């Protein structure tokens, strides 16, 4: 875990005032960030925050509208092919070639990078092993499960042994088991020193994988730090969640005041922020409040996001 911002000279990505506009709409509004070599860096934010647009600019498939961007010390505007030859991209939507088999997807992708057939074959075998798809290598892509397709997409992105791996919502839409398997694979890459840049709207994913992250909302970066730092800075140690029977929550005026450092009312529950969650639960009980359920938990990035934007991450 790196707790300090990276040193500039080791940065693989540098963005200053980076902006993306589509007509009158500004998708990314003058953001600054740097990603250091070997780091796992995340963009956390809800859908439409500008995460994917940022990733596409880094991946040199979307021209920047303003500011400056350097990737691997090169300019995406003029040196796209050279940059792309050294990065791996896992797009939000799987774009596997459904007209080819699992193995052919890897081999041919290597050919796009100009690798020899023999080299592509060697790397494909390794990556099939890594993605736990060796037994399915001669199958068509279509019948694979969502998790397998995702693993194949990641394996494909690694065929050129990239210095930098871009993952746009790597586990969205996967079941919990498939997600954990994928996280495990990504964690191994991280241990091997591959620089990971990912977007996510899952706080648990960000906490699992990111050394450092920026929180994006409405095209801007609203906070930056390690998951721990962000939680320390923007939330309390614990959260007490009270869920009341239908109709009761609206009639609680004033009864919760002073129970915690901060109170957030969501549609279906009330969140009480304090360093000692148990004490809050006891105090609420002493006031005669009768919630249906009480849950005391540690603060997460979800709470950070709520604090920063007043909204929850997943609508």
């Amino acid at each position, binding site marked *: 875990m790196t707790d300090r911002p990276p040193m500039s000279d080791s940065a693989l990505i540098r963005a200053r005032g980076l902006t993306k506009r589509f007509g009158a709409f500004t998708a990314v509004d003058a953001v600054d960030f740097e990603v250091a070599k070997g780091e796992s860096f995340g963009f956390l934010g809800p859908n439409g925050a500008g995460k994917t647009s940022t990733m596409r600019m880094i991946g040199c*498939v979307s021209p920047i509208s303003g500011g400056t961007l350097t990737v691997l010390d090169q300019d995406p505007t003029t040196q*796209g092919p050279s940059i792309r030859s050294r990065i791996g991209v896992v797009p939000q939507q799987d774009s596997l070639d459904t007209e080819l088999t699992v193995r052919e997807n890897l081999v*041919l992708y290597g050919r*796009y990078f100009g690798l020899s057939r023999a080299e592509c074959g060697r790397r494909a075998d390794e990556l099939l092993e890594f993605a736990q798809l060796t037994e399915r290598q001669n199958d068509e892509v279509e019948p694979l499960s969502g998790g397998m397709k995702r693993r194949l997409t990641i394996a494909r992105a690694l065929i050129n042994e990239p210095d930098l791996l871009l993952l746009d919502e790597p586990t969205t839409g996967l079941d919990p088991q498939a997600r954990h398997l994928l996280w495990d694979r990504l964690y191994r890459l991280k241990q091997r020193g591959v620089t990971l840049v990912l977007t996510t709207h899952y706080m648990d994913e960000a906490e699992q994988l990111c050394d450092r992250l920026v929180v994006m909302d409405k095209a801007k970066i609203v906070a930056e730090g390690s998951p721990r730092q962000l939680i320390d800075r923007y939330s309390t140690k614990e959260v007490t969640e009270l869920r009341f029977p239908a109709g009761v929550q609206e009639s609680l005026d004033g009864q919760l005041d002073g129970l915690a450092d901060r109170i957030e009312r969501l549609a279906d529950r009330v969140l009480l922020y304090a360093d000692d969650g148990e004490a809050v639960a006891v105090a609420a009980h002493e006031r005669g409040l009768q919630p249906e359920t009480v849950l005391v938990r540690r603060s997460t990035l979800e709470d950070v996001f709520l604090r920063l934007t007043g909204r929850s991450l997943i609508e």
Partner: protein
Amino acid sequence: MTGPTLPLRVAPPIMFGSRRALRLIERNLYVYRHGWIVIVSGFFEPLFYLLSIGFGLGALVGNVPGPGGASIPYQLFVAPALLASSSMNGAITEATFNFFFKLRYQKTFDAILSTPLSVADIALGEMGWGLIRGALYTVGFIGVMVVLGIGVSPWLLLTVPAALLISFGFGAVGMAATSFMRTWQDFDLIQLIILPMFLFSGTFYPVETYPDGLRFIVQLTPLYQGVDLLRSLAVGVVGPEAIFHVAYLLVMGFAGLFVVSRRLDRLLLK
């Protein structure tokens, strides 16, 4: 930084296609290794037409006036026109349905653009594949013509590049049109153009049967260029209008490639 990059932005993007375009051809070879039957079927289509119309109908028709006015057997009249039509059809199928699927549904090109390949490489590679496929059909069909004793002119050899030129023109314009399509239904429009062209461009009977005004219009259709070019080569009577046909098809091809490159740029590199 804008200074040195300026020429890049001004020159048409198609000029910068590279040898990486060959990888697209390789992809298609991989794909068709699984579906070689599709390739074979494309060879039989014009052959069946030739047997049914050339020989079946030809037996009733006898001789017709060919290029230069000389009387030629109906089989010789219709065979090169069928070759021209099948070059058009093959190129259009590849450039419309298959191209649309890769562009809009499978996101094949999005994945490819994350590698060093460029939009121009994709356009050139897809075009190149269409031409290779077209060349296979053409050689096969001409082989059949020779075996059946239809057309023995030494000019016949030139029908191969000429048929490729037809594939090039229609393939490029087809891809350009496809880049504007939004749904599968839009392709009915293309069929609405292709089918009448197939039936009325002097394919099955001489355009001299039309009244002057109508004949002039027919002679401006792209398929007519191909039909007349291939027919004059097959018969061995090549006039100056062949130069016009060649120029027409070349312009069509390069204009189509130019448009499709720009469109892919807009669609894929948002």
